[in-house]
């Protein structure tokens, strides 16, 4: 053996009630190395890393840092051992500057030496090429800049072991490339880095080693140079999985939803959607790309009647009808009845569309509770529907009355998407339907979307992963700051072109650099 490992985990076990989240896991990480931690949802990746970050405490096993056994009881202990974690959700104070956020919570007397902090921040920033301005306020920053501040914060505290939990989920392709550049620079500087991600091409592009977990168990570690995406998927899932999205040509696409000059304002009067026009066709998947918060949510909600429309029109042509109806101003219930379904998966998965404390049956009732005469609710039909969805989408739940909050993320999303599809809509809108889902489940959902498209449904798919959008959709509408910056053919466009449209309104062809 060479010198000591930066981190060594020996037989780490963590249980939550009866569930074994981590089952006797061994793992090593060396300095000057990037390790990808790969696994399906609920395989225990985040739990394992949270034990390094001091958020959980292992039930059994030991953690060695630099060859010495340690006990990490709090995030502060973790920092003392040089371990820093960058979480998926940023923990920054909006009205503070970058430097103030970085200094926040540090000990060192009552006095805050802003100048010294700014100098040190600048120094770290220059060393790895972060390019952040210590005096910029967080509310003025883009998502990528905020993430950078989080990384600098961790480095400022002297961390030389960094853990990043799905860092690219919120970034554009260009920003992702920049982040990877930074991570490589840190690796060259001798830091040890763990990155949790679902995106296989990122694993292949960035890491030196890949450790795979499956259902709480450690499956193995492979060198990235000696593996390929297919082999990694097989390790993760435990059996062979096909990674192709079948994309048949649309059959006889007919205009279903015609949107003209749609403009929406939020409560403060800020334009969330600015003169948006497009047509969604039955028998086609229209992808919607854009940086998080570019108006995706508002677009879907305004179509569903849940967001006030300032101006513009939404014309909907029901199947078989030749006259379009105006949806603007109609109550959500009526729009739903007309056949427009929405499956919106918010960041917390449960905030909208599902009731966490109820079982699958109770959640199926959200669509049908008003049906039938009299004051009593009909539980029989929703119960049958719940059983059907459970069967068809292979939802793992002890019973259809088991609270969906306690299901794993993938299963929660299957319940949501399954319910919307079961209503046999003519327009199916889904946002972030595969957010945080493992590969296997994601492909189930993609196939469901394609299945709907072939049935003649107009599918609107808001996605985060550009690779998937390019493979799944027929056309892609790119939103940037509430405006349509382009509608492109998904079969011919390149990722870089979409990436540029995401950051620049009206980014014409001449601006697209080499692919």
């Amino acid at each position, binding site marked *: 053996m060479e010198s000591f490992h930066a981190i060594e985990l020996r037989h780490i076990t963590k249980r939550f009630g009866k569930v074994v989240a981590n089952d006797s896991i061994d793992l090593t990480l060396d300095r000057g190395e990037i390790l990808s931690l790969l696994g399906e949802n609920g395989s225990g990746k985040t739990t394992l890393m949270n034990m390094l970050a001091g958020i959980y405490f292992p039930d059994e096993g030991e953690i060695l840092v630099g060859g010495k056994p340690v006990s990490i009881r709090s995030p502060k202990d973790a920092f003392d051992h040089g371990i820093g974690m960058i979480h998926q959700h940023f923990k920054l104070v909006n009205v503070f500057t970058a430097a103030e956020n970085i200094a926040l919570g540090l000990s060192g007397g009552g006095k805050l030496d802003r100048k010294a902090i700014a100098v040190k921040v600048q120094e770290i920033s220059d060393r790895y090429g972060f390019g952040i301005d210590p005096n910029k306020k967080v509310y003025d920053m883009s998502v990528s800049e905020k993430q950078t501040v989080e990384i600098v914060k961790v480095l400022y505290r002297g961390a030389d072991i960094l853990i990043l939990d799905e860092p690219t989920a919120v970034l554009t392709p260009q920003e992702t490339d920049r982040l990877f550049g930074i991570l490589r620079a840190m690796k060259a500087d001798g830091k040890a880095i763990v990155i949790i991600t679902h995106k296989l091409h990122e694993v292949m592009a960035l890491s030196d080693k890949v450790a795979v977990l499956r259902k709480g168990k450690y499956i193995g570690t492979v060198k990235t140079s000696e593996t390929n995406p297919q082999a990694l998927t097989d390790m993760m899932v435990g059996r062979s999985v096909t990674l192709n999205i079948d994309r048949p040509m649309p059959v006889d696409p007919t205009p279903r939803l015609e949107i003209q000059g749609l403009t929406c304002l939020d409560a403060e009067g800020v334009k969330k959607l600015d003169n948006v026009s497009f047509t969604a066709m039955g028998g086609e998947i229209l992808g919607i790309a854009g940086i998080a918060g570019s108006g995706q949510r508002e677009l879907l909600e305004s179509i569903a009647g849940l967001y006030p429309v300032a101006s513009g029109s939404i014309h909907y042509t029901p199947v078989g009808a030749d006259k379009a109806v105006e949806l603007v101003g109609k109550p*959500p219930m009526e729009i739903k009845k007309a056949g427009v379904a929405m499956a919106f998966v918010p960041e917390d998965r449960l905030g909208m*569309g599902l009731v966490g404390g109820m079982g699958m049956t109770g959640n199926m009732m959200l669509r049908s509770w008003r049906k039938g005469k009299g004051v009593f609710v009909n539980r029989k039909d929703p119960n049958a529907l719940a059983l059907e969805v459970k069967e068809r989408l292979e939802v793992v739940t002890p019973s259809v009355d088991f609270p969906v909050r306690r299901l794993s993320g993938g299963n929660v999303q299957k319940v949501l998407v399954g319910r919307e599809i079961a209503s046999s809509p003519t327009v199916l809108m889904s946002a972030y339907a595969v957010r945080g889902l493992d590969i296997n489940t994601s492909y189930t959902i993609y196939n469901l979307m394609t299945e709907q498209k072939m049935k003649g449904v107009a599918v609107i798919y808001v996605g985060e992963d550009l690779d998937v959008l390019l493979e799944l959709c027929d056309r892609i509408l790119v939103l940037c700051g509430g405006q349509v910056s382009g509608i492109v053919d998904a079969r011919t466009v390149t990722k870089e072109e979409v990436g540029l449209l995401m950051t620049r309104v009206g980014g014409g062809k001449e601006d697209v650099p080499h692919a």
Partner: protein
Amino acid sequence: MHEQKIPLIRLAKRDSMEPWKVWCIRGSSFLAAILLGALIFLLMGNNPIAAYGTILSGSLGKKTAIRQTVKLAIPLLGTALAIAPCFKMRFWNIGAEGQITAGAMAASYFALFWYDKLPAPLLLLVMGVAGAAAGGLWALIPAFFKARWNTNETLFTLMMNYIIIGIVKWLQGGPWEGRPGSQMIPMFDSAAVLPKIFGVHCGWIIVLVMTVLMYIYMRHTKHGYEIAVIGESENTARYAGMNVGRIIMRTMFLSGGICGVVGFIVASGANGTLYDGVAAGVGFTAITVAWLAQLNPFAMIGISGLLAVLEKGADTLQTRMAVPASISDIITGIFLFCMLGCEFFINYRMIFRGKHKEVA
């Protein structure tokens, strides 16, 4: 292992627990409350066994005692039922006190000024309906502001209590005053008093019927479903096409209405008149009852019964064994503390250093 650095006690959220274990914990917490209470009696220089004996015999020993206890339990149960749908909706109605008073006031109006104009059964019916309407409307005010401008319902409902109690005080010393200078409203005519069944005014039948109805309402009706969804997530409710504001107002009207009926029962059945302390803190104690019963109407029967036994028993204790009046509050406090505290052990488990076994 590095025992010295592992925390002594760690807490972990439980996944689920078998029902028998849950009841074991509840049972032992009840036992703990009895033991703690015994300790208090010992400190006061009383024989704990005799003291508990007095509590039991004082509340359940004789027919008259049982009647008194039931009388105490009736408004507790009724009000707990009333606030259950609000709490299920996560609308913190702590204005039951005021809604009871409003209901009692409206019922009293008819009892005082209409007793000779209507036959007795009809008069009682009118009083009940008036009580329900007044309680409901009193509750509707904060609900309307919540639905329209998203005001804080906790503060709003609380402050509404003081307004209505103030109004009754004014009636007591002013327009409705009986003998001049008495500061009291005269007793109702016998036509306006609830008849007795098995020695207790028939309010107990009314609240038992309401218990069954409330159970059905919460479990099996569309309204009940709407309330449950809003309690979980207003966004989801909106998404499902529910008119959240209207449901909040409707539910509060219902809640206040039941409180109003309780006010009518107390004024007409128990007191035979109206005074500013008609609610007597029931509106607040009922919150404890509702939570302890986990909003299950049938469990509320047991909890309100238990609290009534403690209250009545401690009352007897005070007169018979000459213990201070505050002993009743202390004993009730100990029981509530233990019963609420045991929920912690049901939801979390403790892991002690060095051992990897769970401790219930």
